[in-house]
């Protein structure tokens, strides 16, 4: 984490502007659960996915990688991802 912070500072000093997650702060608050294990880059690089696709991803995180995410939060995460990083079936 220290490295990330230092790098962030470095990038800011070079004037790089970082892309941030789409949506309002309230909408994306629930996405903090993802940060327990990984940065948000995975969302950008794997998007767009269908609702079914994002469901599969969240299920894998919970069932395979044991991410502690309550069920209501899982639902919100899937809704958020489908809304902002989704695509039609």
């Amino acid at each position, binding site marked *: *984490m220290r490295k*990330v912070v230092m*790098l962030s500072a470095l990038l800011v000093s070079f004037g790089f502007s970082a*892309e941030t997650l789409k949506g309002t702060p309230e909408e994306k608050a*629930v996405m903090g659960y993802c940060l*327990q294990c990984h940065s948000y880059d995975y*969302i950008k*690089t794997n998007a767009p996915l269908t609702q079914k696709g994002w469901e*599969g991803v969240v299920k894998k995180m919970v069932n395979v990688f044991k991410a*502690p995410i309550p069920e209501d939060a899982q639902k919100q995460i899937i809704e958020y991802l489908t809304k902002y990083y989704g695509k039609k079936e």
Partner: protein
Amino acid sequence: MDRRTFLKGGLLVAGGGLILPKLSVAYDPSEILAWSRYPLKSPKHPLIVQTMRPRNFETPVQYYEHFYTPNEAFYVRWHQADYADKKEDFKDYKLKVYGPAAKKPVEFTLDELKKNFKVYELTAINQCSGNRRGLSDPKVTGLQWRYSALGNAKWVGVRLKDVLDAAGVDPKAKAIVVHSSYNPPTVQGQDHFAKAIPIWKAMDENCLIAFEMNGEELPVENGYPARLVIAGWTATYWIKAVTDIQVVFDLPKNFWYDTAYRLPRGKFPTIEFWDKDPSAPFVPITEMVVNSLVVKFVNNNTKRTIYPYEVDNTQIKDIKNFARMGDYITVMGVAYDGGYGIKMVEVSVDGGKTWQEAKIIKSDGRYSWVQWEHTFKVEKKGVYKVMAKASNRMGQTQTFELIWNPAGYHNNVVQTFNLYV
């Protein structure tokens, strides 16, 4: 601030029992940096970010004009976010060999490894199983690597076989199971990232425990103090900062080899094969398939060089305003396979209608890549469709159409470059 204190300070319990994260002021984790180039290992060598945490960085293709990929530009791939990341973190480093099929458990410090065993050097390709996954169509999930989650390096270390012999391997042993205690699971209940390697491969003389890469200590990002070199096989087996080698009769359950890193049976011409369940529909990935990669075009008349990729390696770039009638153009690239050795590389400048054998300009043993080049004269206006295709000594060659599989492995589709005259 480490990750745990960051999370502790950053999470607050809101009404309704739902935990909401409060974003830290020092670092806004909602930054998305993927697919940009940043100085990540060294200020001199910007790499392409796939993900910042865990660290997954891709090498820009142009570095492959160096026969040995520079350590500071060598791609980086980690599964879990928490790991030691400074050389001081490894001062108590020990490699332990134990398990039900090891006669006598042994352990070695790095110095003991270097002193107690004969040291060997081997040049070998290290390629992520998922290299080129990001080119899969239909898309598959996972790290969206483009062309360059690989590198060629000169590895120096001791033979894995010699270290296993020091522990005494039971003749009925089936496999070794390897992990690094410096790379623990991120959350409770997750499997440790571990790989199972069959005994016959582990005892191969071309498998090393390497502590040097291109004449230097390994960078922390690439497995300092020591990593496995499982020559010919994809990098998933090359456990970094290796601390634990268990010699076993039966494989303990683990997601990383029971489920992950598997290929649909029978779709690829893999010779080296093994599984604990011989009837499973998906089998573990093992050796690399034969492949080639175009690195650059050089105009011998104008002396200009072009690396025909977008800055983030996302896609091949058309080559325009580069070649005129009468110019001599040299196309240069690399080719490699799972260790059978490259037999030849052919180049076509007419979209695959006719092929010419390219010149191999450098090689360093059958586990290394070869560098090749081919020069042709521009004799007509229009589009030259330039392709390269490698074949190995087993008679295997590249495909023209993707053999799609759910994890996006083994993409060795022949590349095509449009050169406009």
